[in-house]
């Protein structure tokens, strides 16, 4: 998310401090506009879930890919999610269905792209998702009907919690961590996707180019790791969560490019400069908080509510941490297999209580606020995160809310909950 996503009503805008946040946000806007222009000339375009391999598309002469979760975040930041969800509910879809992944569908069902944020999403020529949730088949099929385009599904093999401290092993032992059978299947699916794109777009897939892209990604994610380590070890916190989210996510959508590497380096250098210059989010930092779960896209200002009153700073979330721990692969002699390994278990890794505890300790947080969305199956398992963190000495406050749908968000009530949590459980005695 970035400064440009001004809410039209309701939500509040976060204040960002990094130059790189503004720069990458502007780049994303410009990229989107340029993409709209490219597509009007009839180029292919893919709408995919965030855990889909956009690297394949980048390899094939940079077929543009937009991620559904990014688009959801944009719609949400523009405070339009309620409008679209109301419309979908009126069409007979019950209100308690998942929101984060279905908001682009709700927007597509409206059939008025000119009213949508940023001039609306162009019609995709392909939809892509791994079926990591029961309803992805349904959502993407409905979306394919709205856009009159094809849907390319990929299987989601069941993750097994057999690799403790996977974050120390993924980079070098990813074949063992993920498992050969699962990798074999995903590699075959990627080959199928490549063949599909070759035959439908006429573009060429280059093994050499994929190798280069994967190497650039490693380089970019290495910067994220350095940034994460720097932020985790610096007191007071030099860069707040809104900046971290904006810079990390806008860069992640362009991973595998030289631009991504250059701006990840800029991100790192700017953080380092702030650390060296003693610049901080909150001079009187008393409480360090971790955010567990997806970003609160309809109200990123929430992360800054508690700085003045309590000296409470949200220091970290999963986004930068998974960039540091979940993406790098050392064996690029088989880039397709390395790519296959990237997203298979990422959803499980993100919800691994022991990884969350490890990150909480790395950042030295005094407490964690965990968003729990009852409409999303990913939130099932939050209790284990809570138990493991509490057992590890980290107080946890679960808050029931949705990250893109503000219709049920009660700002006053949640602020009061977090305030009580900070006062009673987080302020060091």
């Amino acid at each position, binding site marked *: 998310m970035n400064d440009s996503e001004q809410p039209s009503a309701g939500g509040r805008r976060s204040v960002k401090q990094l130059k790189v946040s503004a720069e990458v946000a502007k780049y994303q806007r410009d990229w989107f506009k340029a993409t709209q222009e490219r597509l009007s000339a009839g180029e292919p375009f893919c709408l995919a879930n965030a855990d889909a391999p956009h690297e394949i598309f980048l390899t094939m002469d940079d077929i543009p890919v937009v991620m559904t979760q990014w688009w959801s975040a944009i719609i949400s930041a523009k405070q339009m999610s309620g409008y679209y969800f109301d419309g979908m509910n009126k*069409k*007979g*879809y*019950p209100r*308690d*269905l*998942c929101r984060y992944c279905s908001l682009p569908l709700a927007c597509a069902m409206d059939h008025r792209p000119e009213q949508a944020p940023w001039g609306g999403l162009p019609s995709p020529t392909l939809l892509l998702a791994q*079926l990591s*949730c*029961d*309803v992805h*088949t*349904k*959502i993407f*099929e*409905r979306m394919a009907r709205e856009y009159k385009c094809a849907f390319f*599904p990929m*299987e*989601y*093999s*069941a993750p*097994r*919690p057999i690799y403790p401290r996977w974050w120390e092993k993924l980079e070098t032992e990813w074949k063992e961590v993920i498992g050969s*059978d699962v990798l*074999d*299947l995903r590699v*075959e*699916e990627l080959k*199928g996707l490549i063949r599909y794109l070759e035959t439908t777009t006429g573009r060429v897939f280059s093994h050499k180019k994929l190798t280069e892209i994967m190497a650039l990604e490693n380089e970019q994610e290495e910067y994220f790791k350095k940034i994460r380590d720097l932020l985790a070890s610096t007191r007071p916190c030099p860069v707040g969560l809104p900046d971290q989210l904006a810079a990390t996510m806008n860069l992640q959508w362009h991973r595998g490019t030289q631009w991504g590497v250059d701006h990840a380096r800029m991100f790192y250098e700017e953080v380092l400069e702030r650390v060296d210059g003693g610049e901080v989010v909150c001079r009187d930092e008393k409480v360090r908080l971790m955010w567990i779960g997806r970003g609160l896209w309809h109200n990123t200002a929430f992360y800054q509510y508690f700085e003045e009153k309590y000296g409470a700073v949200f220091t970290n979330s999963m986004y930068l941490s998974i960039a540091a721990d979940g993406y790098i692969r050392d064996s690029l002699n088989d880039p397709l297999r390395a790519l296959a390994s990237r997203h298979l278990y990422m959803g499980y890794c993100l919800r691994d*209580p022991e990884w969350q505890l490890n990150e909480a300790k790395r950042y030295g947080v005094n407490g964690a606020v965990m968003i*729990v969305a*009852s*409409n999303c*199956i990913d*939130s*099932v*398992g*939050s*209790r*284990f995160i809570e*138990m*493991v963190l509490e*057992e590890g000495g980290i107080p946890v406050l679960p808050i029931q809310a949705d990250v893109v749908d503000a219709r049920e968000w009660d700002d006053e009530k949640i602020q009061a909950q977090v305030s009580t949590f900070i006062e009673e459980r987080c302020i060091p005695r």
Partner: protein
Amino acid sequence: MGPLETMRKYYEQRDLAAREWKAGGGKVVGYVSDDVPEEMILAAGFFPQRMSGDPSSNTEEADKYTETFYDPSVRSILNMMLTGKYDFLDFIIIPHSSDSILKLYHQMWWIHRINPAITFPPVYLFDILHLPLYTTGQYVRDRVRELKRKLEEWSGKTLTDEALSRAIAIGNENRSLLKTVAALRAVEPPRLSGCEALRIIGASAFMLKEEHNKLLKQFLEGSRELPARKGVRIFIEGSDLDNLQLYGLIESCGALVVAEDSNWGNRYFEDPADESCDPLEAIADRYHLRPSRIRIQSIDQRVRYCRRNVAEARAQGAVFFIYEWDPAPAWDLPDQKKALEEMGIPTLSFDAQKYSLSDVKKKEIKDSVQRFIQTIGTRQ
């Protein structure tokens, strides 16, 4: 006791046959959903016990560890495991049938990790996937072979092709007999109520199939003498219902449930395994490619299935009943309703329903169903 009463007994006392088997020195493998090849468990010499929830009891123990917002029937199974209701199981197989069922596997793992005093029998995760694609089929074949090895490890014996072929034949006979039973509901007038049918079908998952086949044959031999039933013919769509609460309410209003789209109902016995090929291939094909599955199938496929089965059952109305936190059928709902209404079939929907219906809720549902049935009667 007649065959119908016997099957009713085993449907209601779901652990009875397994405990009897266990008392005789046998071992029991519990499994969740209809995605686990029962034939393989049987061929390996175990008693296959399908695990189901219990809407008459709470989920207090499960709620200590898990959220309340996932498939409530699966949450009930976890609670039953934590409260010793499944203490007779020697092994458990959990398939990758749905998000909630996969979560059940992870929950058991984490509960033991957090509280080592809580133990479960050895659990195997059967990673069955369902896209009707060649690549998925190859993966499923490997998982079926892996399951065979796991069962051999558990039993200490080789699972032979002969034993598996025999188990497949017994399973197919069961499916064929159940299909004949289903025809007793589809005829006009029906000879069987929906509640009776669910008990007969459900008992198949709680008994040895050979015993169930004997009871089915006895029942069918006397089926010509079954009285004709009267009532508005209703089709049930939505969540998989492992209990009789809804059917009881509907049929108490003077309607008859003549068919359903449920893996505890007619969907349980569709699609026999191919007996003419290698038995492991037959198993892999059947469990990979069965045509109707709520979660993985596209809305279009689900609509076609619903339309076809409503027509075949000559249903006069359809009732959609969807549990809270069971989103897959809810995504099908608008298109299925529209399709049925285009066929002239009126529909009644209950979404976000509790697994255990309170008396107040039961009355609400009953009132709605009564009005619905009156409307159908008026229309016709």
